[in-house]
């Protein structure tokens, strides 16, 4: 078996896991289960990054989308809903036409932009360590936008702390 064949098999396996768990995340009635399947989907995307030799991106994907985001979602569900896991999914049947319209429009926009743009399929995978190039871009060429993003995040964090603290008792 050649290396390309192994690569292809791995790619389709990982893609199947990504897509199937994404479908499960959308269709499952239990929100916690949906969040966990979303986590599986996110972490499997890291597998595709590994296949593309983007090792740093894969690790970031696992760190953020494996460790932080699902926990945030699960916390959101747990804090807003009653403990019964079965009754945790609100289904609104009255406005599903609106929902269908909005989702359809979003889907159309994404598909249009996907079909319009040209993707370079060849010569993108480099065996060089990706972290050095990333560091040069982030802390060199794009230093100012990078620092702006940092300040934005800091402001958001301080805002969250103030909101969580609540007003002073009068």
């Amino acid at each position, binding site marked *: 078996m050649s290396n390309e064949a192994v690569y292809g098999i791995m790619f389709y396996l990982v893609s199947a896991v990504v897509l199937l768990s994404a479908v499960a995340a959308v269709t499952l009635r239990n929100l916690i289960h949906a969040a966990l399947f979303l986590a599986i989907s996110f972490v499997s995307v890291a597998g595709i990054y590994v296949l593309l030799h983007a090792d740093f991106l894969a690790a970031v994907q*696992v*760190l953020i989308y494996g460790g932080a985001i699902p926990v945030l979602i699960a916390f959101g569900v747990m804090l807003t809903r009653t403990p019964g896991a079965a009754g945790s999914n609100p289904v609104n049947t009255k406005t599903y036409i609106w929902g269908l319209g909005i989702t359809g429009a979003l889907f159309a926009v994404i598909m249009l932009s996907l079909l319009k743009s040209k993707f370079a399929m060849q010569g993108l995978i480099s065996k060089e360590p990706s972290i050095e190039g990333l560091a040069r871009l982030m802390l060199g060429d794009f230093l100012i936008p990078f620092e702006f993003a940092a300040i934005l995040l800091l402001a958001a964090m301080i805002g969250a702390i103030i909101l969580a603290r609540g007003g002073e008792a009068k």
Partner: protein
Amino acid sequence: MPNDDILLRIGASLRELFAGVLPGPDAVDVAMYFVALIACVALIFTNAVILILAERKVAGFMQSRLGPHRLGPYGMFQTVADVIKLLTKEDYRPQGVDKWVWAMAPVVLFVPPVMVYAVLPFGKNLVPVDLNIGIFYFVAVSSVATIAFLMAGWGSNNKYSVIGGMRAVAQMVSYEIPLVFSILGVVMLTGSLQTSVIVEKQSGIWFILLQPVAFVIYLIAAAAETNRMPFDLVEGESEIIAGPFTEYSGMRWAMFFLAEYASLFAVSAIASTLFLGGWHGPSFLPGWVWFLGKTYVMIFVFMWVRWTFPRLRVDQLMALCWKYLIPVSLANILITGIGIFAYRAMGG
């Protein structure tokens, strides 16, 4: 003699053996990865048995009692008996649990520590997978353990478990930050995330001497990340029974402890990689013996801390992390940066 390392010789002869049977060098590489995986899992299992006995012996020593002493010389077979007992117990599933989430949680919890072993530099040329981003990989993979605690806490459908799961998440997410910041100090000194390079650069001086503050922060944050005393609020048996573990029994329950000891070994090994010079040591012993020796010293330190300090309260835990550890670790990064700059300016 480092070149006559017995493990390297075993590896080389295995490689020759595979080369005779398998087609192509890639297949041999894959086979060698499987050998490394099996070796790591074997290490985890035997190590857990040894560490549980060691923990009980150390605890006994520190509390002026004997610890286990009935079975075998010095109670050496006590853990083996315990494992057999746990294996033969009924696999009991409480009625109200969320079946799949509850059943998968111990398995998911066990995955990150096993994956961390891939980048541990056991010796020169003895890294299972010498990743370019080794240390960052360790950070990324071990963050996934959080979700396993959440699964166990939620899936058990028990209020104590949910409280424990929430504590676990709050604690592990918070203490990840000082852990990463303390590692950053060492990464700044070496300019590499590769574990083998980090050890290589310590041939002259161990980084514990250059980064003592980072070492202490790493110790505290790692103890919190592995949920060990004085940060075992997740279990907190006097408050919330056993936290996320409450509804588990038999081998599923044992999986939690297996995972705890696996990650205890992993964080200790990372500590000896980052701060204690890894495989470096006088050459009358092979490198991996030095590495394991330093790791076990670190494990003893963790046990020592565990049986010395009382458990923190939740608010104290958060205050320690956000008000002390994070500012100190940020200052450490700043001072390290200034130090490196000054060293370069002096023409070092």
